[in-house]
């Protein structure tokens, strides 16, 4: 029974990682660049919801939507500040500016809110309810359903909207897309806005389940890296699959290992996949990896 409970925990974690991983993989698909500050976008989203719900006393759902809007705007700003000016330069320069942005955001939040841990004050510690024999809190149920709803929204955005179509076109072949009149800078900005909004939503869900701190985005973002490598970089179904894979692996892994090694399990899987299966499970192309 404990093992099944760990699996349920893995699904909850996987749902949270997936919201970050989708944005990472979309941005990678279009720019061939790993967005290192994506976890900090999630963190800022979580703090925006904190301002709305705790400082102004509005319901958390209002904070959730404010976070999504703030995430989208921040995504556009990050693209402008860190990625657009260095787009023509070596790939590592984009990575370094992204790292700098992530430090900037962590410390700006630490300066305003302090380094101490905050919560959404969702009331007394929730008592888990039993669903099919598993202990799960209402917050956790909401997290999983919200995450799945946002994944369906992503699917609709990518497959059914015009801008989604253009995102796929630019990811596929930027020059060809530009030649038929697609404004690739606009498409890149939209990708950042959409992916960052999802990350911010993920940040609120993570904070609702645990708590808020300036460093809260770092680990989930590295888990999301691991997820997109496992699933195959650039693929959205791959990112979602990889997220649940990592979530399950690290939670079930602590059945065998001391629980302190939970994070290390995800990193170990990341290194193994990078070394032996760098295209992941759903990936096709060998991007950036030695042939």
């Amino acid at each position, binding site marked *: 029974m404990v093992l099944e409970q760990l699996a349920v925990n893995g699904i909850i974690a996987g749902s949270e990682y997936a919201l970050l991983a989708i944005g990472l993989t979309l941005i990678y698909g279009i720019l061939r660049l*790993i967005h290192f500050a994506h976890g900090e976008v999630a963190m800022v989203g979580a703090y925006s919801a904190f301002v709305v719900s705790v400082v102004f006393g509005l319901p958390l759902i209002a904070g959730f939507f404010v976070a999504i809007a703030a995430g989208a705007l921040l995504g556009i700003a990050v693209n402008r500040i860190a990625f657009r000016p*260095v787009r023509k330069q*070596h790939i*590592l*320069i984009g990575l370094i500016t992204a790292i*700098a942005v992530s430090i900037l955001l962590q410390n700006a939040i630490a300066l305003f809110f302090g380094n101490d841990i905050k919560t959404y004050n969702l009331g007394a510690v929730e008592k888990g309810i039993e669903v099919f024999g598993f202990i799960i809190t209402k917050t956790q149920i909401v997290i999983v359903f919200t995450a799945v709803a946002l994944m369906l929204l992503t699917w609709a955005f990518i497959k059914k909207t015009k801008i989604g179509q253009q995102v796929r076109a630019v990811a596929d072949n930027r020059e060809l897309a530009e030649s038929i009149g697609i404004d690739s800078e606009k498409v890149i900005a939209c990708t950042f806005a959409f992916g960052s909004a999802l990350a911010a939503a993920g940040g609120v869900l993570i904070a609702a389940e645990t708590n808020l701190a300036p460093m809260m985005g770092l680990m989930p973002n590295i888990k999301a890296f691991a997820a997109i490598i496992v699933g195959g970089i650039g693929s959205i179904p791959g990112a979602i699959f990889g997220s649940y894979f990592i979530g399950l692996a690290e939670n079930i892994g602590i059945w065998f290992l001391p629980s302190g090694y939970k994070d290390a399990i995800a990193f170990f899987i990341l290194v193994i996949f990078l070394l032996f299966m760098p295209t992941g499970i759903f990936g096709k192309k060998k991007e950036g*990896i030695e042939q």
Partner: protein
Amino acid sequence: MIEAYILHLLIFICIYAILSMSLNLITGYAGMLNLGHAAFFGIGAYASVLIVMAGFPFWLGFIAAGAIAAFFGLLLSVPALRLRGDFLAIATLAFGEIIRSILVNWTEFTRGPLGIPGIPKPEIFGIAFDSLWMYFILAFIIAAVAYFVLRHLLNSNFGIALKAIRENESVAASLGKNVNLLKMQAFVVGAFFAGLAGSLFAHYITFIDPGTFVLGETILMLLMVALGGMGSLEGSILGAIILILLPEPLRFIGLPSAVVGPLRQIIYAAILIVLVIKKPRGLLGTQWFGGIVSDSN
């Protein structure tokens, strides 16, 4: 009082100069972005402390710190042979986090997050380095030796071959350079010196915990390398001097420490962004990842 403060800063400059020079070898010369350099620093610190506190002499702990870190450098060079660019960066990041995780969790050995207090000051063949002046002399000698060894290595065929790999790996290979071996050597030598810096740091501060050897430390070293110039050993020393001294005035304007810490990091990050956009070659660098970047100035 002022003398002690200045000596303290000079000791830190020596330690960080070794770190930034060794990172420059891997990242600036060989062109492999290493986000796990703080792990080598930490491995060296823990190795040296555990050996010395088990009753062995300092010089043995010091050399072992370099050797054990170099062994981990060899391990990390395995992904470096297969991955490029940002993928390698992510793999090195994961390596750093795995090492940190082990330092936190292997409590019988490392005391975990509690850290190891009461580390003895070094004593080499009867000479005790227990005063600030003595420690500064020790740190300065080691930093100077590190500089001359690296300078010699990089002026030799080894250094030229590394640069050739950074410029164009296929061309370097076609000219008969053993690219894999060279990358391995860069990681091993870089990790070795970072390990020595770890030993020097641990016996100076006399307390270590896993929280010291985190990604933020690697970023600081990377910033020193980028500021001084990728592929410039002298630049790395200059970068270490500037970035150790730069945040110091913040201490004297009476801001609370909860403000100084984040503010320092914000200054670092802002410099890094402006630097790579406006002056990607750094202060003394000749090139940044080959001819790909044209200096915008």
